[in-house]
């Protein structure tokens, strides 16, 4: 379907999978979450609850300047006037924001380790277990890692090498101390505190996160990577990431996430802001594997995240690639504001839901500049009793002369008790702008599985192969090591979906 009119398109839901029962593909128990261990480490937490004092505590703990404290307090005031959004296709009981702890730090990290040798060995072991060895010599060549454990950043590797090129890659707290002018200039410039309920909350209480600045004309020679992990109980994780690529700069950033198994839901409300100036390119890849809850839907992370990139400069480019397999609920729309003429926005997404998981994810491409282009490729896979929704907006503003969008949203269903839904909103306000949208919904077929079995593959390997094939266009956007990890993750998340 191609739409080039300025009429918003009606919402087009795809049919529920329940239409056609398939006797061979029935969902059974999912495999255990492998990253569900808890690290036994002393941590410093504050009592549950949120008020000005909480905000002051966090700010003081981080030794923040007055302007940032004021910024947080304003956000808190804003948040109090807002109500939680209800438009997403997800269901969950009301969240008691006063029952959440807004700060947790491993005790040993309290006096900020200067180098890896000073990092608590327990913490290092945790990351080893997660497959993220922080020891530089053990690192995959070309990946620098910032690891965020609960509320604080515990280590940043390869810092010196990057610093020699003028690249800043550090924890957010450190950036506030060391590069306040940059933080002040860009913080909240893409996602204002008042943007939405969860962004306002994050702005008030954000704990840590990563900061990247790549100076003019510099191509960052390695992938920058952050690993987030929630460890402490009852804590929310509210990280804040800011990436700025100055004129002609390039950076590829990877983000991975895990959390222990707990039978209560935990909130994760992050904000990520990207800024690309003239000719700059930012590639942002996520493999999100927060604990999804058990097979009955108990526990799991609420992943309510605001991610947005501003292509401010002429010919700038921002590319989001996400593989979302975790979380009980995902509410996430990595977006691009295509302000500079000839700027490019991309969104490649694989979202897999199993058991009782719910995902409402997609993107927004806001075309402001002339000849701006955007591409959306979304692959939703639903299994078990899960609900998987693509929600996207393509908006071509009156100045977006000659702008183009291509969107492709495919859904794959495994079993007959899950749902796939597609809500593509299109809003075109310039006659020369073109929007192309394609969508498909298919079901893993008995015949496809049988064909692969006939060539010697076990049922699960067959399903895996079909799903990986379905996701291929997205996986090839990921850096090599991440693509391999993403494939494995899909396999694990799918185990037990056919029997």
């Amino acid at each position: 379907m191609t739409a080039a009119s300025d009429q918003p398109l009606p919402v087009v839901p795809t049919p529920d999978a329940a239409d056609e029962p398939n006797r061979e593909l029935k969902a059974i128990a999912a495999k255990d979450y492998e990253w569900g261990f808890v690290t036994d480490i002393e941590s410093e937490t504050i009592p549950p609850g949120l008020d000005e004092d909480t905000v002051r505590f966090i700010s003081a703990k981080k030794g923040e300047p007055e302007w940032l404290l004021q910024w947080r307090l304003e956000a808190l005031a804003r948040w109090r006037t807002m109500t939680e959004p209800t438009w997403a296709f997800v269901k969950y009981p009301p969240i008691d924001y006063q029952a959440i702890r807004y700060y947790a730090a491993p005790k040993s990290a309290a006096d900020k380790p200067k180098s890896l040798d000073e990092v608590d060995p327990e913490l290092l072991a945790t990351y080893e277990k997660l497959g993220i060895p922080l020891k530089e010599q053990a690192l995959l060549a070309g990946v620098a890692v910032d690891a965020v454990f609960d509320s604080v950043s515990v280590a940043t590797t390869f810092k010196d090498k990057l610093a020699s090129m003028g690249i800043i890659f550090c924890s957010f707290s450190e950036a506030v101390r060391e590069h306040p002018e940059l933080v002040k200039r860009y913080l909240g410039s893409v996602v204002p505190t008042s943007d939405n309920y969860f962004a306002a909350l994050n702005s008030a209480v954000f704990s840590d996160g990563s900061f990247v600045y790549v100076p003019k004309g510099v191509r960052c020679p390695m992938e920058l990577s952050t690993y987030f992990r929630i460890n402490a109980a009852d804590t929310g994780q509210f990280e804040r990431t800011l990436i700025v690529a100055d004129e002609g700069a390039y950076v590829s950033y990877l983000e991975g996430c895990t959390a222990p198994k707990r039978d209560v839901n935990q909130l994760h409300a992050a904000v990520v802001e990207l800024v690309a100036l003239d000719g700059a390119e930012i590639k942002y890849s996520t493999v999100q594997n927060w604990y999804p809850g058990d097979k009955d839907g108990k526990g799991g992370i609420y992943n309510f995240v605001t991610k947005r990139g501003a292509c401010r400069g002429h010919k700038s480019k921002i590319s989001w690639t996400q593989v979302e397999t975790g979380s009980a609920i995902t509410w996430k729309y990595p977006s691009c504001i295509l302000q500079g003429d000839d700027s490019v926005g991309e969104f490649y997404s694989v979202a897999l839901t199993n058991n009782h998981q719910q995902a409402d994810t997609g993107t927004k491409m806001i075309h402001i500049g002339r000849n701006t282009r955007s591409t959306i490729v979304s692959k939703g896979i639903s299994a078990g009793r899960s609900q998987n929704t693509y929600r996207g907006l393509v908006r071509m503003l009156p100045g977006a002369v000659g702008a183009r969008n291509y969107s492709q949203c495919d859904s794959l269903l495994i079993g007959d008790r899950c749902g796939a839904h597609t809500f593509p909103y299109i809003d075109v306000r310039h006659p020369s702008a073109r929007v192309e949208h394609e969508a498909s919904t298919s079901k893993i077929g008995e015949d496809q599985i049988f064909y692969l079995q006939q060539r010697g593959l076990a049922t699960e390997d067959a399903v895996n192969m079909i799903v990986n094939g379905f996701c291929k266009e997205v996986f090839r956007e990921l850096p090599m090591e991440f693509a391999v990890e993403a494939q494995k993750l899909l396999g694990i998340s799918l185990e037990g979906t056919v029997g």
Partner: protein
Amino acid sequence: MLEIQGLSARVGEKPILEGLDLVVPTGEVHAVMGPNGSGKSTLAKVLAGHPSVEVTAGTVRYLGQDLLELDPEERAREGVFLAFQYPIEIPGVSNSTLLREGLNAVRAHRGEKPLDAMDFLKLARAHAAKLGMDPTMLGRSVNEGFSGGEKKRNEVLQMLVLEPRLAVLDETDSGLDIDALKVVASGVNALRSPERAFLVITHYQRLLDHIVPDVVHVLAGGRIVRTGDRSLALELEEKGYGWLDTTAGAAR
């Protein structure tokens, strides 16, 4: 190698095979001919273990084992190969990925080491060349956008790579021009050996000019109603299937 006795099978409520007997000794090539809808593909599906076909009576022994007891992938690993009448498309999965995974599953079953990527590619390319297939076919998604003829060649390529003990070819000749037919036949003939057996399902005697069968069977009314040598195929070509008494109780 293959002994089928009193096989009855249905799809849904509909009985398709009713008391079929068929024996294929090791080293032989048997052809199965029969009118459209007589159950030839259903027989092939029973042998491969397709879940849509329900066996209601009879036994199938393969190399001394009860074939019906095995899962489809176990049958494949034990050397049963089916060249599908309608090969399935698997978007995003390359031919070479499927071939390598399949071959390594079979090798693991035989207690052999997996073939590394280079050795595998050499092997697959060599077989593809024999079938006159462009090597880029290996990188394309399984059967996606393939022409009818390409799909059939691809089935034969998979057979050559997997080296089955018992190969069932379900109308692999249909939709092929004469040159393609010869290529496919040469692929099958290359694999003929005293250790293997073939069950070649076809509608036309034409294929049997190139793959010369030891025995020809006629399937009609859910069972084998005639068994003979090559001349039976010629006779069918001449007279059609009308003269066969499909209600006859006894085969031959």
